[in-house]
């Protein structure tokens, strides 16, 4: 037998052991008080803190809301490998969301919901659990119901292709925190895009039924695609200040990657136009009817126990 170093069978083998040695913390948090502990969160010169914070909320909410949707597959995926893959993708996005919401709170504390005195809820969790739908800035592609596995694959492909291109640019942000979050996210999104691209190809070239479901999912989600490339005033201001990315400038690169997947899959680009309503609905806090139910499920426990400690 190889000589394997092992830890003492104590702290990690007993879920209750940590409760005795750690400080009291919020019952629904992960107990790492500040994901940006010790990170310099000074807002760069010439950047409006409120603009930077709102911009971080936009990118953070995209990740948080899609993470919640993808997590619905946990325990429900077609097989164990895909269940784990989807859960890992949801976890990566949740991690990105946590850092981005924490960065938003550090840039502009005025955007963090106030809670009763003595509440142990950290800033990023206040933003996640104590804002209402109109305060969420995510694109609608992230929030619409997941549908079947094929539609889930289409959404992850569309979202990760766009977000990967965005994060590659964002890794050169003048804001060192955003640049670092983006550089790390690029590595994660590369896996998400490859995962979804391969499944897209597999379903497109699989059975008549798998192809039918894939094309249905693509047609259903395509009206939400244009919104990702519309520039909100906050995105424009963030881009001008050198901290953000103007999504309109990503279209050519993103289309080129998406066309590779479509061509390999023998699928033509849908022709349906954008969803009716204002183009910038999600970024302005206008969401679909189903978004309320998603938020209710995500937020209900935290809202019932804003002082919950253990």
């Amino acid at each position, binding site marked *: 037998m*190889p*000589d*394997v*170093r*092992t*830890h003492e069978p104590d*702290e*990690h083998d007993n879920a209750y052991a*940590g409760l005795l*040695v750690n400080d009291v913390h919020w019952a629904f948090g*992960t*107990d*790492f008080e*500040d*994901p*940006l*502990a*010790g*990170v310099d969160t000074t807002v760069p010169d010439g950047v409006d803190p409120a603009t930077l914070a709102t911009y971080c909320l936009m990118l953070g909410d995209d990740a948080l809301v899609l993470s919640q949707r993808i997590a619905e597959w946990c325990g429900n995926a077609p097989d164990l*490998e895909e269940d*784990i*893959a989807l*859960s*890992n*993708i949801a*976890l*990566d*996005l*949740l*991690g*990105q969301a*946590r*850092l981005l919401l924490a960065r938003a709170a550090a840039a502009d504390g005025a955007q963090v919901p106030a809670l009763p005195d003595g509440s142990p809820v950290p800033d990023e969790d206040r933003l996640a659990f104590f804002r209402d739908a109109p305060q969420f800035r995510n694109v609608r592609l992230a929030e619409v119901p997941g549908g079947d596995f094929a539609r889930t694959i289409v959404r992850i492909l569309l979202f990760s292709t766009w977000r*990967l*291109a965005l994060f*590659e640019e964002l890794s050169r942000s003048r804001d*060192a*925190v955003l*640049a*670092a*979050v983006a*550089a*790390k*996210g*690029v*590595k*994660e999104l*590369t*896996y998400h*895009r*490859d*995962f979804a*691209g*391969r499944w897209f*190809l597999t379903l497109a070239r699989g059975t008549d039924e798998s192809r039918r479901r894939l094309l249905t999912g693509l047609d259903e989600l395509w009206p939400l695609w244009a919104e990702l490339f519309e520039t909100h005033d906050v995105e424009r201001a963030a881009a001008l200040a050198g901290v953000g990315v103007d999504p309109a400038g990503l279209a050519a*690169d993103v289309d080129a*990657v998406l066309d*590779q*997947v479509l061509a*390999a899959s023998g699928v033509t680009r849908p022709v349906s136009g954008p969803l009716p309503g204002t183009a910038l609905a999600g970024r302005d806090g206008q969401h679909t009817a189903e978004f309320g139910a998603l938020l209710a499920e995500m937020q209900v426990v935290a809202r019932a126990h804003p002082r919950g400690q253990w």
Partner: protein
Amino acid sequence: MLQNGPALDRDRALTRAREVASAVVDPELPMLTLADLGVLRDIDVDADGAVTAAITPTYSGCPAMAAMRDDLVRELQAAGFADTRVRVVLEPAWTTDWITPAGRAALAAAGISPPGPAPRRSGPVPLRLTPTRRAVRCPQCGSDDVVVGSEFGSTACKALYRCRSCLEPFEHVKEI
């Protein structure tokens, strides 16, 4: 000697704090120390004897960060460093290239295939529609006749493989 006293004390404290922190193991890969994993980035002791440990997440959503922090604080406090804090370093992003040779050997000995060199690129990230090809060998029997089961394993940092020679499944730490 007298004027060198505090500096010598601080050197000794730093050496000791490094020893203690370097022995703390990863909560999910307990055959590896945080130092072997490349997650422990720095240890510093200030003039008052306060210790600051710097750690970096492997993945943005790594749920083990809290446990790592608690373990570092607990071990350092047990070694007499009452004032101990942990700070996060986000930049540069963690890469599997930081796993030490000792760490790679420990992974292999525990039946986990260690990562190859991390990808380096300039320009846009290329799309890969075919399974990722890696020079992976089965950690059980050494065969290179292995197949990917999933790019995502029991933790975000590992992929699932299966060996077609000995038929055993195993995990591979993904190159990032």
